[in-house]
């Protein structure tokens, strides 16, 4: 009887030792696993962030500037700015003539031209050509077409021609002059621009550079 109880007790001890050892081993394994987890989390978060990082929504409007230089260095500059970002950031810049997203101009006169009166005249005018100059040196055309102000200049002075085309929606021009008498409201102009469809605003081509400024919903340059 005492032999049997001794055997049972030793078996119990063996089992207890065995389970303790198992428990300790699993605790150590769990610790090792836990210690390795942050690396996994970091790896997952970095890959997850790249996966989950959304592209900008289709309603976002982007202003793109691209300058391609055809000189020896072949420089290319691409700038993509979300219009909303520009709208929010401009009012925070207070430097020289720029305050609260508005630029001060002296009495709305530039080279003795009353800009405000000129804009008002263009705004109320019907579509048509306002200025057409054709000479040996250059061709200039200023027109209003489909609620856009179009300025086209072709410089023929040199053997290497240069061409400038500016196309600005009238709503943007209205917004630009919507501030006080001697101010241009850049933020209002950007806001008006964001309501426009995909459009090319500025195009400059000469023998050295090609400059393009345009608006669309893509967050990358072509």
């Amino acid at each position: 009887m005492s032999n049997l109880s001794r055997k049972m007790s030793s078996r119990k001890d063996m089992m207890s030792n065995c389970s303790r050892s198992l428990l300790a081993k699993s605790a150590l394994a769990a610790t090792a696993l836990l210690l390795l987890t942050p690396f996994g989390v970091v790896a997952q978060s970095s890959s997850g962030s790249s996966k989950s990082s959304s592209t900008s929504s289709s309603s976002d409007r982007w202003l793109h500037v691209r300058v391609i230089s055809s000189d020896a260095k072949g420089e290319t500059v691409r700038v993509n700015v979300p219009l909303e970002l520009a709208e929010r950031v401009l009012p925070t810049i207070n430097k020289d003539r720029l305050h609260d997203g508005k630029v001060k101009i002296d009495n709305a006169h530039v080279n003795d031209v009353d800009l405000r009166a000129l804009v008002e005249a263009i705004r109320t005018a019907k579509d048509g050509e306002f200025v057409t100059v054709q000479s040996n040196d250059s061709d200039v055309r200023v027109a209003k077409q489909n609620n856009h102000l179009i300025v086209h200049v072709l410089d023929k002075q040199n053997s290497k021609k240069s061409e400038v085309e500016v196309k600005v929606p009238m709503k943007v021009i209205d917004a630009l002059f919507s501030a006080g008498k001697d101010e241009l409201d850049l933020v209002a102009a950007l806001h008006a621009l964001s309501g426009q469809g995909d459009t090319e605003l500025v195009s400059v081509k000469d023998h050295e550079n090609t400059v393009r400024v345009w608006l669309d919903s893509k967050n990358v340059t072509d």
Partner: protein
Amino acid sequence: MMLLAKAALGLGGTLVLAGAYTMREGVIRVDVDEYRSGGSHVHMWVPAAAVSMAMHFVPSKHMRHASEQARAALPVFHAIIKELKKYPDADLVEVVDDDQHVHVRTHGGKLQIDVDAPDEKVHLLCPLSALEDVTSQLEERSPAA
């Protein structure tokens, strides 16, 4: 053995929590290599959360000085960072010529600046949330605030 396992579990758990907290905002990476005699080679890898935590321990005198120096630029910088957070993956500026490449973009909610030139290489990667934390703290500690 059991005691050792318990201690290891406790230590492991603490380290995991500390690691997860520190890494929650990602890391700031700075790599600068100047290829000229005496040029510097800096390679830094810092948890972003550690930077904003460490800023709490900077003496207020130095913080005030820093925020005063950056006072004019802080609102602009803060506005840019806040807005950039809405565009986690975007190419902002890219300048390429025959031997240089400058690229500024957001990638996975981080601001990434890469400059590859023959004489130097600079790669900077910083979570936008960390930049926002830093500017917020500087703004809070500015004398005008």
